[in-house]
């Protein structure tokens, strides 16, 4: 046990949870953002039914991200959340609106357009808040005496607005390509057109964020562009280009599943890029994973359970997706 650094293991597990959240809730938040572009009736019902059985599980990864951070890196939790206070509140309230819409929209046909709007706006607000939070962490948080030392709007900057917009495009792309897989007919044709346009827009946004990040701080520049590291880091944009090419090719050829998988790969590459920029910091250049680590007893206690329970969770989650495989259709139990 001593030869393995348990804090690094935990950083890996938290990173996995965050990534799982981003791609899983990403596609259902993306569907929320795109929702108003689908025709009322069959198209919207199909889109909704394609995520109704799984959205709750997807969002549980967000709770694990928060709870896990509190448990194993309490200092990071205690700094990042006050630093992004208005964003967190906005995200939580956005999630309230979109979460209840899944059930509420079926309860009264006259109210349905309003809950559809709540679903879309809630998804949009939550996504923007998450994107800005990511940017805020990247650009740096003021810390003094183990606590957040900034004001309550420190997170607002052109860069963070850019990351907010980029995540909206990225989640929408995930959502559109998920719908290419899970719907049919007019809804699918619409999703395919959206995926194409969003693919281009997302790549532009990724390029913009990637270009801006090294100018935020010397440290980021050094990590990406100094020899010999550059030979390794240069692989990331190269793989992005290959993935993007396969995405557009498969979308053109009428493939249903491959475009979604390529978008997942794109998100994974972004995530790796993020790791290259910030590791081993949780709050860049202020708090490392070792600074923030909970005492060893707490990390070990959690690790034992996680090692046993994680595979079980992944197992039944996969089963739940398997049960609802195939096209979504327009009828739930409602």
């Amino acid at each position, binding site marked *: 046990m001593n030869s393995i650094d348990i804090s690094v293991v935990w950083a890996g597990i938290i990173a996995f949870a965050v990534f799982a959240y981003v791609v899983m809730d990403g596609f259902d938040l993306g569907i929320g953002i795109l929702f108003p572009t689908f025709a009322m009736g069959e198209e919207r019902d199909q889109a909704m039914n394609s995520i*109704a*059985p*799984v959205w*709750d*599980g997807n*969002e*549980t990864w967000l*709770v*694990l991200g*928060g*709870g*896990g951070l*509190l*448990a194993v890196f*309490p*200092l990071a*939790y*205690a*700094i*990042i*959340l*006050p630093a992004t*206070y*208005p964003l*967190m*509140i906005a995200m*939580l309230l956005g*999630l*309230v609106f979109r*979460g*209840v819409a899944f*059930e*509420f929209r079926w*309860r*009264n046909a006259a*109210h349905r357009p309003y809950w559809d709007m709540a679903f879309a706006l809630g998804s949009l607000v939550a996504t923007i808040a998450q994107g800005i939070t990511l940017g805020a962490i990247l650009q740096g948080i003021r810390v003094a005496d*183990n606590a*957040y030392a900034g*004001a*309550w709007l420190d997170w607002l900057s052109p860069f963070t607005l850019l990351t907010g917009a980029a995540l909206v495009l990225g989640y929408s792309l995930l959502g559109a390509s998920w719908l290419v897989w899970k719907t049919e007919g007019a809804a699918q044709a619409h999703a395919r057109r959206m995926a194409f346009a969003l693919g281009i827009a997302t790549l532009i946004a990724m390029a913009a964020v990637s270009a801006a990040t090294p100018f935020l701080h010397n440290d980021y520049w050094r990590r990406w562009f100094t020899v010999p590291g550059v030979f390794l880091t240069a692989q990331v944009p190269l793989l992005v280009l290959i993935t993007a090419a396969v995405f557009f090719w498969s979308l053109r050829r009428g493939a249903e599943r491959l475009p979604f998988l390529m978008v997942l790969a794109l998100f994974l590459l972004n995530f790796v890029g993020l790791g290259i920029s910030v590791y081993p910091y949780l709050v860049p250049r202020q708090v490392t994973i070792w600074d923030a680590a*909970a005492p060893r*007893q*707490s990390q070990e206690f*959690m690790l034992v*359970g996680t090692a046993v329970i*994680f595979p079980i*969770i992944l197992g*039944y*989650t996969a*089963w*739940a997706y398997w*049960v*609802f495989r*195939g*096209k979504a*259709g327009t*009828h*739930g*139990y*409602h």
Partner: protein
Amino acid sequence: MIDHLDPTTLARAQFAFTVSFHFIFPAFSIGLASYLAVLEALWLKTGKGLYLDVFMYWVKIFAVVFGMGVVSGIVMSYQFGTNWSVYSQKVGPIIGPLMAYEVLTAFFLEAGFLGVMLFGMAKVGKSLHFFATCMVALGTLISATWIVSANSWMHTPVGFLVNANGQFVPAGSWWPIVFNPSFPYRLVHTVIAAYLTTALAVGGVGAWHLLVDRTNLHARTLFSMAMWMAALVGPVQILAGDTQGLNTLKYQPIKVLAMEGDYDPSPSGAPLVLFGLPSNADAVVHARLEIPKLGSLILLHDPNAPLPGLKDFARSKWPPVPIVFWSFRIMVGVGLAILGLGVCSLIARASGRLYDWRLLHWSAVIMGPAGFVAVIAGWVTTEVGRQPYTVYGQLLTAQSHSPLAAPAVAASLVVFAVVYFSVFGAGTAYLLRMMARAPTSREVEPPHLPQRAAGITPAAGMEQTSATESDHELHRH
């Protein structure tokens, strides 16, 4: 007004508001999930469509309640960081793992099987569907276990050390932390409360429809099952509450004295104050109506046993007594009313008038929401009674909150209030609408699965369950 409020008060108000709202939903969904598992078991065992009808009636209501519980619960998991960051940093090493285990062992389990429970009957068949329902019910109980453990530790903290960073860390084994002294009592009291709350709601709905049509078999089933619950579990809850009271007296005597309104010590036996107006400023309960010696008899099982008073403790350690005093009386009052309802239902059952006694039905309708009132009142009693601490006797609430400016917290409190009242208000209206519709035999047709009914094994049946048009036929719209 905001000028007079400090960030601690505002943060407390926000947490109290969001957690009180949140608690309503799990209190209902813990009970409903178990009830649904029982109904489905009865359907599978007896083959009576009636039970499936009732299951389908409540599962739609469950979906709405559960959804509201999920979204209001996500808020809670982040509020520790947004509003109580100092608390999180100091207590995270102890509370964090307990809550993370709740996520791992309970939330994922519920969420993973919820989709199958709500939408999957035609896809997975009866047995696997029943399994999914049981897993959701189990998840709600596991969730209650962990969160009550974490909460109990804040009332009766044991097994910890404070390290050089001022963090609370485990002193050794996790066993005493998880099974801290008040945990077993709280868990029993809380889970029974959830069951009774659900029983009252179900009984109220059944009674309402009996008032409309006393021959409605479905309404009779709801009412009868709920009244069994009230009659049998109501007394158990009073016993459970009593033992938790004794436990609290041992570990948090100040809280019990606040509940009782005992400012002055009672060297020769404490009275039971039935009503009164406690005042912390005057350190006295005005306009009191009391029964001599009964307080000591209940708390110490001896009418002459001496009981200390709040004045024996420093004033800085007193909670806001009037709130605790009154919320406790509301909870106990509802508990006694449940007992009364249960006893009346037994009498009605014995005399064969269970489905004809309109006064009983009206009482059950009025008592329908009473469980929620009792749950919130009980929660207020125990949490306000813990003040002025977050971790009892160890960490002051005033030292736990985030370094945030008052306007930020005040603004978010206002937004939370507006959003919660409108969104959950709408949700409550939908629930009442669903409950106002009488459960009927047209609730849903039993899933007619010819390919499986013909004796094909479940595994073979699963091969055929891709989402084709024929599958959609199985769903009712």
